[in-house]
């Protein structure tokens, strides 16, 4: 792939805490990626529409309100419905360990909770994009 990795950082639902989303957006830019931040209160449908329109490789979802089990799988479901499930979806926020297997079953590639470094996240994205390229 010749162009930089493109990432959509999104806040699904009504949670307004975007400190983490803003930090990760900046950190991924510093790692050489192209990052678009949706701003607050995006519905899964809006997020998917933006991701397709912007032709991103990765969607990073951030949620601290506890609504992740409903909102994250809705994003992957809509991606599939629109034939865009090659977009890698990762998530972060206040997410209990016990919810992570459920989210992975629903197509979330990885879940990063507090304590993950921005470098680890960037590295995961690079590897995941590389693996996907190899498949196609």
């Amino acid at each position, binding site marked *: 792939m010749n162009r930089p990795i493109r990432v959509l950082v999104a806040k699904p639902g009504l949670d*307004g*805490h975007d*400190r983490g989303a803003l930090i990760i957006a900046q*950190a991924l830019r510093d790692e050489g990626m192209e990052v678009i931040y949706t701003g*607050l*209160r995006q*519905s899964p449908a809006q997020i998917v529409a933006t991701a397709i329109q912007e032709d991103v490789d990765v969607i990073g979802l951030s949620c601290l309100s506890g609504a992740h089990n409903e909102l994250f799988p809705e994003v992957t479901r809509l991606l599939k419905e629109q034939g865009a499930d090659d977009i890698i979806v990762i998530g972060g926020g206040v997410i*209990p360990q016990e919810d992570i297997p459920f989210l992975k079953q629903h197509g979330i590639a990885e879940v990063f909770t*507090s304590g993950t470094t921005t470098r680890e996240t960037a590295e995961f994205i690079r590897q995941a994009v590389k693996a996907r390229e190899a498949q196609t």
Partner: protein
Amino acid sequence: MTKRTFHDAYREWKEKTESFLTKFPERKQSFVTSSGIEVDRLYVGSDENPSDWERIGFPGEYPFTRGIRPTMYRGRLWTMRQYAGFGSAEETNRRFRYLLEQGQTGLSVAFDLPTQIGYDSDDPMAKGEVGKVGVAIDSLEDMERLLEGIPLDQVSTSMTINAPASVLLAMYIAVGEKQGVPSHQLRGTIQNDILKEYIARGTYIFPPQPSMRLITDVFAYSAEHVPKWNTISISGYHIREAGSTAVQEVAFTLANGIAYVEAAVKAGLDVDQFAPRLSFFFNAHNHFFEEIAKFRAARRLWARIMRERFGARDPRSWQLRFHTQTGGSTLTAQQPDNNIVRVTLQALAAVLGGTQSLHTNARDEALALPTEESARIALRTQQIIAYECGVADTVDPLGGSYFVEALTDRIEEEAVRYIQKIDDLGGAVSAVEQGYMQREIHRVALETQRRIESGEEVVVGMNRFRLEDEPQPPLHRVDPALERKQVERVQALRARRDGQRVQETLAALKRAAEGTDNLMPHILACVKAYATVGEICHALRDVFGEYQPV
């Protein structure tokens, strides 16, 4: 006027305190250490004429560096007010009663995000969020259930509600009426601070100008009808959680406070009519001494602003009264029991800084809402500080510490510089619209993240002293069936109520919003007709529009 000496001032303070004591006696006849050493009410140092006494002052006197009351916690402990709310009104009511039984002394209601942003539980925007971060309140009916069996003339209630604060206050007034408690007896606080929502927390609805009007309408209405209510809690808490420094927390919060006072004065209110009901809300993070100094500096700076900038004459207008919550963002998901220790230190700093009310976070809040057990431990932490360690037995125990006084001075100076910068940008509303505070906070948040990732800033159990294979504690879960039940409930209410009356009150509210009438009586009429939070907020959205961030 001849200059007062320290000796005269101290004597005057002692005399005034004696007469204060006849009205407000202390908790005990005498306070002693475990060795039986008598603890004095106030320590002023051994020097008979300390050079900086005027700058620091005496507790209960301008500029209130040492506290807003002459006896502080010797007279009355701070209010122990644990923030709670989840699921349905009934479930939250049960948690309230549990916490009151366990010795909590004030209620603090957490609302779910749809309520906070003015959507009913059956709105498509609410999907997945109903009852999650707080209790779902759609109408007066839910509020009645929430407060069932809680005597509103005896308990003070704080409500973390901002954009729809007028609506929830109206509901509280209406429940009071049903209980036979007139509005002038109601005590409590609504957060009602919209500027920090644009800056840090994101639960805004309307653009800044109409939001400011809603706030000043509450000031004016409450001064007349709900005089014991704190009409706003100007909140630095979320500014700090979004990543600010302690200095920025003080500066941006007080700058927002200045904007509210200016708006109210511009709306024709007399400053001494509403200023005594302004209250504040601060965070307590880990740097123990800086946090203590922060509270002292904020108090002194606000006293100066109110007296010198706004010409307030009533000493109650000069007093900065505040609630403190320990720092949610300082807690770690790793080794959650370590959070109990962090919270203890933060709570101690708040008490040494002279807070009026305190919420201690629970150990599991980096993972989920607190379980009943973890909420109880958090409350016990406050009780141990209050009753066992003796810090509440003398006023401002760290006053006069070279370190604390120097930090207090420094925080005040740096905050003043920020406030001047915001004044230069045209005040807080304009600075928010230009994204100034948002950018400043984001810059610091990034720096903090980099320091944590490099290990320069140690977070025990997270970037140092980690454990492999940590056991996961049991977590509080909100019943997934709750959303469906709440949706059915609000739809049943709409079918049952007097629809025509609802439409009439909503139409009257819209007309008032288009003009200049105080909106509170109109909102109260809507609420009593069982119009929902969503319907009332949509009526206002139709007139005011929605805020689009920069």
